[in-house]
């Protein structure tokens, strides 16, 4: 598989850090995504006023839309989860979208990025459970009747470990598959603009995968906060 031409990797090569750049492409592009998000947010809140200007209006629309959707799933008691959930959604969406710019690599096309997001979500689920229920959180894993515990408990534990795998592999597989299809089509028929329909599909897939990750995260948080059956 040939290596595509990546701008920031070339920048690091010019600075002499070529080995670091090639081994850790996803880290460099994560820094790029962080810079983009921070700069856009700073620009939007520069002149905060009661009658919003254009940039502030867009950010308000985005933030209130995500918050209202989250409240419709978690209920009012889940409002404090909003910073983490919205960060997950905006970060993963921006990571996916920058992959469509020629010369950029989406950080989520590397398993390390997606696994880190999935681990944060699953560990935080357990932190919420212990914070809300204390030691009684174990009742979430024990099932409805006491004599089925030896069967239900391993199944629940495996189910929770499977959440990490499924969250990370879903996002990674979608993004890596998209990159592979683009690379192969480019190799086969690049002169005929063959990758263009795939890139249009890529915009849709980027939004849907970020949304699905966000939705599953808040559903896991909700199920940890509610009472066990």
């Amino acid at each position, binding site marked *: *598989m040939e290596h595509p031409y990546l701008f920031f990797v070339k920048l690091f090569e010019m600075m002499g850090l070529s080995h670091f750049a090639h081994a850790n492409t996803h880290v460099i592009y994560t820094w790029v995504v962080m810079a983009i998000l921070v700069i856009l947010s700073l620009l939007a809140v520069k002149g905060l006023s009661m009658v919003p200007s254009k940039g502030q209006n867009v950010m308000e629309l985005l933030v209130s839309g995500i918050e209202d959707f989250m409240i419709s799933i978690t209920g009012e008691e889940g409002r404090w989860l909003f910073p983490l959930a919205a960060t997950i959604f905006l970060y993963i969406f921006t990571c996916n979208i920058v992959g469509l710019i020629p010369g950029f690599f989406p950080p989520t096309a590397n398993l390390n990025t997606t696994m880190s997001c999935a681990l944060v979500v699953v560990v935080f689920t357990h932190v919420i459970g212990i914070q809300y229920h204390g030691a009684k959180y174990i009742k979430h894993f024990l099932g409805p009747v006491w004599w089925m515990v030896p069967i239900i408990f391993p199944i629940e534990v495996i189910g929770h470990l499977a959440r990490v795998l*499924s969250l990370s*592999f*879903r996002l*990674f*597989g*979608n993004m*890596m*598959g998209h990159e*592979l299809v683009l690379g192969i089509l480019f190799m086969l028929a690049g002169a005929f603009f063959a990758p263009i329909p795939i890139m249009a599909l890529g915009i849709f897939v980027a939004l*849907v*995968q970020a*949304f*699905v990750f966000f*939705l599953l995260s808040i559903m896991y948080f909700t199920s940890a906060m509610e009472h066990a059956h």
Partner: protein
Amino acid sequence: MEAEALKFFIACVTAAGFGIAIAAFGCGIGQGLGLKSAVEGIARNPESSGKVTVTMLIGLAMIESLCIYALVISLILIYATPMAGTVNKLLGAA
């Protein structure tokens, strides 16, 4: 040793091709059934079109992720087989 590695690699690549084909077959049927119910729901009650569409997209993404798991296994079989070093030398020299 090289002949064994090549036979193993041929078996891996064949398995990868059939694996993703079978997964795509199942995924197509699953997503088609979900889509069928969503469209029937919208036809029956056009006002619910927004909610039904959002739920349908989430369901399609969940089903698609099963096919993605099979795709990841196929990619591992093609690009990261246990005999990857020997195979790379063979194909690089050929």
